[in-house]
Structures are given as structure tokens and as C-alpha cells.
């Protein structure tokens, strides 16, 4: 039989029993729609997780913080060595670096500074690091170049830093040139690469002097060179980097200034205990994503706090997998019921058409033609149900997303204007239609074989 004729005959037979066919198809529609919508929820959830993590940074970066045990009041180390356990020093950083799988470890010395770029002003958080760290992290540069060891008074800026600058004289306030939901952002107020840059640890630097003055002697700001702008929106977007040496030099002057302002020279923690320099935190870059967990365990074993996005991703993925299993399971059950419905319908129609099958066999039908006829009928029920189910899923997904925009169900926006509740990628449409057709074929297989094997004479004798 020609395939066109087979399809035509099958269609006619389905059409013959319009009501029964459409009820069976309805079962498949419900099954398909529930499975597709459920899976789409899971996909959307995963996409949101990944988006969120991409916003946050690299998965092979571990941030190490001093142990919480490092608290002079609760120090459990009565022997009182010169350096407390759990503090980050050059020595501990060196020991991180010797852990297998670690590409590089760098201490981070953080400073809060005030900066001016031409007439604009901003607060910045300066991070002193080993320049090699950025190289290992394969940091991409939008403009300029990466940090180098010999750089003096040179800063490397994150892509968002320029947006933090504001005009202290303008009344409009509007310090953020960022418009929600607007893809086309305005350019930052100032181009850091070309502007004249100054930085100071004096927090009044750059502001309008209050009437009557502050009564403090002004600090001479540093003249800063911008060596580059980091590309992208990742973890580096709001950072300003310089070399450890440079950060340390500024910190020493800052400490001295603070001491002189407060006038209590004795409060300086440095003079008494600081025989070894300590850092705010450290960044450990791991070579391979598979090693992140063991490295974290090792560092924690050394008495530090260590975090990476991997842990976050893991826990989010576990949650998402569990939810997807439940959702997919619910959908699968309804499709299973639909599959049983197809089998039942096919058995019914073979029962009704037994005599017809016998006649067809006598007048020359091949065994395979009979089988194909019924298989195509069953597959068609699956296909039509799948197709209709997808149309409904498409609509359902749109509705879910519309509702989801107004109610944040998962409360994990993260500035996610584009956070979606339900995502149906093209592959899901294709997979669903192939799958339902396959379900039809499988459900119809046994009945079709039964029809094929009917004995001619007994089929003819049935009424």
C-alpha cells in the first residue's frame, strides 16, 4: 500500500468515530500539555539559576575569609601566638597555593576610597591583589590592559564603576544612570580612561565643602592612571583593582591619617600585634571545576571560611532537580493514562472492525498493511493530541509568564526583569511531538499486531 493511501484510510477510520477519537485525543492533549508545562517550569527555573550565577561570577573562584573563631574575645588559642589561627596572611595564602588543583591564590587588601573623575565624584572599594590572579582568571579587558606588578598609582576598573560617578554640584540627584527595563543604557557620565583621576582616603574629598569648613586639614589626593576597563557584568563589574603593593602603601598612609584625626595614637591595632600583615580575605582560583569541592574542603579543614558559587549552584540544582522530578512525574502520569486510552480505543475499534479486517485480508491486504493501518491510526491520535497539547502549552506558558511577572513566585528576582516562570524551547516542542507520536505508536502496537494476526475465517464469521 502507498503511504499516502495508508494515511488516508487511517484518517477516514478516525473520522468515522469522531467522538471517540476526539475523546482519546483529548486525553493525549491533557497529558502533553501537563508534561510540557511542567518541564517548562523546570527549564525556566534552571535558566534563572544559571542567569543568576552568571551574574555573580566564575565557578572556579573560591573566596576565603578569616575564620569566625578569629575573635580576640573568644580566642581558643590560649598559647597566644603572634598570629591567630584563621587569619589571612602571606603564609596562609602560600599554603592555599600549595593545595593540589589550585592555580593561584591571592590575598585581597580592601580600601574604601573617594575618587574624582574630572568634576564627577564616587566612592570606590579598592582591592589590592596579585596582578597574576587576573591573568589566571582569564579576565577580559574592554579597554586598556591588565594590571602589572610594577604599576604605580594605576587602577583597573570594573565595567559598572563609571556609572557610580555623580556630579556633586548637580541638583538632580540621579546618581544612577540606569533605567530599569531599558536595554539601551545611557553611557556612563564619565570616561575613566580619559578623565583626570584623583583618589583619596579622605571621605570629604570631592564634595562641596560644608559652610564654615570641616576644620580639618585637607589631604593631598593621589593622581591616578586608569590602565583599563574590565569587560562584562560578572563579579568584577563593581571592582577596582590595583597591585597589593600599591594598596598597602595607601593603607599605611590612611592608617596614619586616621590615627592623627582621632588623636588616639594608642588605639592603633598595628603597633601592638601587627608583626605580620593580615588581609581582609583571599581569592583562590582552582584549575578545574571538578576540584573546587575538594579544595574548599581542604581550606575549611585549615580553619577558614571558604565559599564558591559551586555550592550555591549545587544546592540550587538539587532543589530544581527535585522539583522537576515531581513536576515531570505528574505530567508523565497523565500521559500514561492517555496512552492506556489510546490502547483501549484501538482495541475497541479492532473489535468493531474484525469482519472488515477479515474481508480486507481475503481481497488482498498484506499482513503488514493491516498492521500499518492501525499503527498509523494510533500514531495519528498521538500526533494530533501532541500538536493540540503544544498549542495549549504555548498559551499556558504565556499565561504563566504573564502571571509570573506580576507575582514573583520564586522570589529570586535578582533584578530579573526578564525572569520567566515557564520556558518552552524549540527542542521541547519537537521532542514533545515526537514523543507523543511515539507514545501513540507504542500504545497501538499490540492492538495492531492483534489485528494483523486475526485468522481470516474467524474474522469473517464475526458479526
Amino acid at each position, binding site marked *: 500500500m*502507498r503511504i499516502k493511501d495508508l494515511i488516508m*484510510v487511517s484518517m477516514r477510520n478516525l473520522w468515522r468515530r469522531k467522538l471517540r477519537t476526539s475523546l482519546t485525543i483529548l486525553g493525549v492533549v491533557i497529558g502533553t500539555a501537563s508534561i510540557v508545562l511542567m518541564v517548562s517550569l523546570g527549564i525556566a527555573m534552571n535558566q534563572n539559576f544559571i542567569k543568576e550565577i552568571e551574574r555573580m561570577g566564575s565557578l572556579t573562584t573560591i573566596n576565603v575569609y578569616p575564620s569566625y573563631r578569629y575573635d580576640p574575645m573568644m580566642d581558643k588559642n590560649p598559647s597566644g601566638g603572634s598570629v591567630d589561627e584563621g587569619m589571612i596572611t602571606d603564609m596562609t595564602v602560600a599554603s592555599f597555593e600549595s593545595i593540589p588543583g589550585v592555580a593561584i591564590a591571592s590575598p585581597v587588601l580592601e580600601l574604601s576610597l573617594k575618587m574624582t573623575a574630572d568634576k564627577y565624584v564616587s566612592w570606590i572599594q579598592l582591592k589590592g591583589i596579585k596582578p597574576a590572579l587576573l591573568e589566571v582568571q582569564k579576565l577580559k579587558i574592554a579597554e586598556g590592559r591588565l594590571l602589572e606588578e610594577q604599576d604605580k598609582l594605576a587602577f583597573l576598573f570594573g565595567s559598572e564603576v563609571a556609572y557610580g560617578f555623580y556630579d556633586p554640584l548637580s541638583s538632580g540627584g540621579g546618581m544612577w544612570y540606569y533605567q530599569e527595563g531599558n536595554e539601551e543604557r545611557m553611557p556612563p557620565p564619565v570616561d575613566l580612561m580619559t578623565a583626570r583621576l584623583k583618589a583619596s582616603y579622605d571621605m570629604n574629598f570631592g564634595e562641596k565643602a560644608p559652610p564654615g569648613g570641616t576644620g580639618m586639614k585637607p589631604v593631598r589626593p593621589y593622581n591616578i592612571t586608569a590602565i583599563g576597563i574590565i569587560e562584562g557584568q560578572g563579579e568584577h563589574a563593581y571592582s577596582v583593582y590595583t597591585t597589593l603593593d600599591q594598596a598597602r602603601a595607601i593603607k599605611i598612609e590612611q592608617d596614619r591619617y586616621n590615627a592623627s584625626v582621632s588623636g588616639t595614637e594608642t588605639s592603633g591595632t598595628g603597633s601592638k600585634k601587627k608583626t605580620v600583615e593580615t588581609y581582609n580575605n583571599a581569592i583562590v582560583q582552582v584549575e578545574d571545576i571538578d576540584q573546587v569541592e575538594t579544595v574548599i574542603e581542604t581550606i575549611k579543614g585549615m580553619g577558614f571560611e571558604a565559599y564558591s558559587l559551586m555550592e550555591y549552584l549545587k544546592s540550587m540544582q538539587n532543589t530544581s532537580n527535585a522539583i522537576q522530578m515531581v513536576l515531570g512525574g505528574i505530567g508523565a502520569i497523565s500521559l500514561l493514562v492517555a496512552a492506556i486510552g489510546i490502547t483501549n480505543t484501538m482495541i475497541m475499534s479492532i473489535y468493531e472492525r474484525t469482519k472488515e479486517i477479515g*474481508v480486507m485480508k481475503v*481481497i*488482498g491486504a*498484506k499482513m503488514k*498493511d493491516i498492521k500499518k493501518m492501525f499503527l498509523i491510526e494510533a500514531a495519528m491520535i498521538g500526533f494530533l493530541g501532541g500538536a493540540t497539547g503544544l498549542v495549549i502549552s504555548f498559551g499556558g506558558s504565556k499565561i504563566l509568564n504573564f502571571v509570573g511577572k506580576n507575582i514573583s513566585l520564586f522570589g529570586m528576582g535578582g533584578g530579573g526583569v526578564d525572569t520567566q516562570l515557564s520556558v518552552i524551547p524549540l527542542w521541547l516542542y519537537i521532542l514533545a511531538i515526537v514523543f507523543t507520536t511515539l507514545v501513540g505508536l507504542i500504545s497501538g502496537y499490540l492492538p495492531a499486531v492483534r489485528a494483523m494476526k486475526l485468522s481470516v475465517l474467524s474474522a469473517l464469521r464475526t458479526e
Partner: protein
Amino acid sequence: MGKIMIIKGLRKVYRMGKEKVIALDHVDLDIEEEKVYCLLGPSGSGKSTLLNMMAGLEPPTKGSISFKNLKIDKMNESDLANFRRRHIGFIFQSYNLIPTLNALENITMPLLFKGVHPKVRHKVGMEMLDAIGIKDRWRHKPTEMSGGQQQRVSLARAFINDPDIIFADEPTGNLDTKTANTMMMLMLGLVKERRQTLIIVTHNEELAVFADYVIHIRDGNIYEIVMNADKKKVDHSTTEI
């Protein structure tokens, strides 16, 4: 004239639980090409059983049936299906048309299974309808036709494949005498014109006069074969002429 079918030592036993029903036994029969045979006998004598086995609708318990050089008794279901499609036409007493299809579609069903193009099917089908004189009813469903018309459609369906041999199990059983006669004439006309072999089962002795040979069956045995041309009785053990 060559032989189209040779039957040797045919036996058919139906088992009903522990009871055995011997429907046919010790049947030897040669069918010659381009002849018309009539199977005559009382009800329950095994006419239909013999016809069905010759047409490859059910397997014999014992014995052999050959069609030309094909061993029908040795064939599996799938080979039998192919044999039926290629070589035989079958006419039922109760027409057995597909109720959802119209006359033309019913007639061209065998061509559908052969994979003939729809346009060709339509053309050949219409010619056939013309030949049996119900061309104007081609769109009618079986329920919209008289018994005689339905049997004509059924007859056209059996002939459309241009088979070598046509089997008819009481084709006129449900028809009145006049219609039965025209039906017979139609069938004989087609068979002669196309040089085909025809085997008819009937109760009706009047119809037997149209056949070249009348095979009398009683209690599952052929007890005589009558050649009609000169009304000469032929002993069944010496069927060969």
C-alpha cells in the same frame, strides 16, 4: 488445457473440544484452466470448507493443494496473503462490502493493496463499474444499494485484480432467481472474456447447468464429477480427460 490447481488427499478436521468433525476427507481434485466449476451438495457437506482451503483462507489438516507450482498447504499467513492478492478473487454470499466506502472505493480496494496510483484506480474502477452496469451508482455506499447491486460491486471487486482464479461461495444465495440468473450470466461472461477459472459453490441445481464441470460433494467426499458439455458422467478417480 493445463491444470491450474491440483489437490491430493485433502482432509480437514475441526476439533470441538474432544469431539472431532471431519469436514473433508480423501479429496483429490484437478482444476483445469479457463473452466467453470460448480461445487454442489447438501448443507454441511463441506463445500465451503473445500473452497476456503483452495482460496488459501484456511490450512488443510492433511493433503496438498498446489496452485500452478505453488504449494498452498505449505504457506505461512504472509505468503497466503500474497498468494490471494496476486492470484485469486473471492465473492461472498453476504457481499461483505466495507460499509464506509462507496461502490467505487469498494471495487478498487484490491488495487489499493497493490499500491496502484489513485488516478489509475479511479479509471480502472469506473471501467469495471461500467462493465457490470452500475456506473451511475459509483458514489453510493453499500447501504444505499439493493442486494443485487451490492453483489455486482462485490463481483467487480473480485475481478478488478484480474486474478487467475475466482472463488464464489453461494454468490446468488441471497438473490431472487431472476437476479441470480443475470448475476450468473455476468460472471460467466467476464470469466470467458478474461479466460479465467471460476469455482462456484451453490445449492441451486439450476445454476449448475452453466458450469463446465459439476462436482458433487456428500459428507466430505467428492462422489462424482459431471462434465456438462455432453452430460457425460466422469468417475472421480479418473477426472483427467
